[in-house]
């Protein structure tokens, strides 16, 4: 089969293909780019329009009105606040927890490897389904976590259905799902560090806190940075966990960017406002991902240089 194909391609195709082939092969990638860019530009246009699905006749350009109205819109400031709070809390907690677990599992042993494989399971669970699992466990009627909370004196702990604890609950689910991601990256990082500095430090009897803060942590920084930015970009856009758990509620406690845009689009059919929200979120992620890409390119060059 291969012989036939290569026989056929060899005499005719090679000269031409050398110039055209890369373009032909990368056509799908180009099409995906276009497939992303068209809706993206459409979103930009929508965001400058007064556009409600319920009043299609009233659709017209209002230029910056959608954006300008955000300044005086307490709902928008709530969205911004909750999104940043959610992203900040989850990333910091997951980073600390992930680093701690990676350090615990650093030594290669059968038990440690087994545990690190088991910890992959939450990460492989669909976030929306993970939210449903926690919803069942925190059900006020029969949820096992509600029962355990009542045992330690929290008689009426309402988890996601109370405005005061809703953020805590979704952050907890996020930590459950995504801490293993950071743990895996940092564990891979820890295990790939060169051993000489540690052996030298051990010979010299350097205190372990000094080794950790002056050797381990600096050498691990590229991994920590990558993991952090990955999680940050993901977390500020969180939709699945929050929507599956509370649909942005109770009230507007958890209307983060994507949830708010979804509700604006499908419930109040306000396409213009929804698009403007997404453009602002995109600007935030673009800013963050530029930092990430620069950092990533530098890392890659450094890896190449050492190799």
């Amino acid at each position, binding site marked *: 089969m291969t012989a036939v194909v290569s026989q056929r391609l060899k005499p005719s195709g090679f000269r031409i293909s050398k110039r055209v082939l890369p373009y032909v092969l990368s056509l799908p990638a180009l099409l995906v780019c276009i497939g992303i860019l068209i809706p993206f530009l459409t979103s930009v246009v929508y965001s400058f329009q007064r556009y409600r699905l319920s009043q299609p006749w009233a659709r017209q350009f209002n230029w910056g009105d959608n954006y300008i109205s955000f300044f005086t819109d307490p709902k928008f400031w709530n969205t911004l606040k909750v999104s940043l709070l959610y992203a900040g809390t989850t990333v910091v907690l997951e980073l600390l927890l992930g680093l701690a677990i990676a350090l615990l599992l650093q030594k290669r042993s059968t038990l440690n490897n087994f545990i690190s494989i088991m*910890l992959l399971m939450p990460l492989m669970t669909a*976030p929306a389904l993970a939210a449903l*699992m926690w919803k069942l466990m925190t059900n006020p009627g*029969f949820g096992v976590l509600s029962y355990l909370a009542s045992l330690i004196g929290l008689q009426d702990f309402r988890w996601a259905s109370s405005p005061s604890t809703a953020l805590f609950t979704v952050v907890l689910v996020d930590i459950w799902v995504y801490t293993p991601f950071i743990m895996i*990256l940092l564990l891979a990082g820890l295990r790939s560090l060169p051993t000489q500095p540690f052996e030298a430090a051990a010979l010299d009897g350097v205190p372990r806190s000094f080794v950790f803060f002056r050797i381990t942590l600096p050498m691990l920084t590229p991994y920590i940075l990558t993991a952090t930015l990955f999680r940050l970009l993901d977390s500020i856009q969180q939709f699945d966990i929050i929507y599956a758990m509370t649909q942005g509620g109770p009230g507007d406690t958890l209307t983060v960017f994507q949830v708010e845009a979804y509700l604006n689009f499908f419930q109040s059919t306000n396409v213009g406002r929804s698009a403007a929200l997404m453009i602002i979120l995109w600007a935030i992620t*673009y800013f963050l991902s530029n930092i990430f890409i620069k950092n990533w390119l530098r890392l890659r060059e450094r890896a190449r240089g050492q190799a």
Partner: protein
Amino acid sequence: MEHTSLLERILRGIALTLVVIFFMFPILWIFMMSFQTNETILRIPPQLIFEPTLANYTALITGKLMTAAGTLDIAFMRNLWNSVFLSVTSVAVSLLLGVPAAYAFARHKFRGSEDIAFTLLSFKFAPALLVLLPLTLYFQKLGLANTYIGLIWVYQLICLPLILWIVRGYFEDIPADIEYAYRIGGHSWFATFRKIALPLAGPGIAAAGLLAFIFAWNNFVFALVLASADKQPVTVGALAFITSSGIQYGQISAAIVLSITPTLALALYAQRYLVEGLSLGAVKG
């Protein structure tokens, strides 16, 4: 490391136990709930010992739920099938399109190649709804709303960038000299790609395909926006199931167990590829 004190070993043991309990308990608990009747589930305090029943699974698989009020239809198996079909097809299409493209990006630096790669990478992090909301309106006009083809098309937005980036990294790591040597031997470009590049990048392709499958299976928002009940995968279907069936907690747990088992099993079976794909995907892009 050698002279760890007994106290430290105990503290480490306790910490690890807590970690394992926190991350494993929810899965274990839902698994147990799926074998209980609603009566045992609703009992307080929660029961650790109970008589296991397969009734929840039978109800899901046969699609008929017998309750005191009558028979209730459950379309959950349909969701499960949708998940399998959508994920497998999307990943297959992505691999077919993405692996040659990744090869082109890695081997041939042509005009605009970095621009395409860069655009894909920066949009990998763009909010999904930014693209999805205009797409819903377009899809309605094109007649693609709530079709498998439309969904598989949109799923390419998840799978293709992932495959491109991971596989490209693997192709770049293959020394070009090996390929040149084979080419000088009189073999065509295609033969070189098939006989040399593909096998050498095999682990990377496997890792990328596995990750793409898991991402496709676990995706929620794409299908929530673009599919109605008969095309929905398990992630959306399970949420709808909860709201429609109300108090059938045993069946809901069983549905969750059935929905998460494929990805968990795959992950455990191929965890080496998975860890490699995750680390590469992050460190290499």
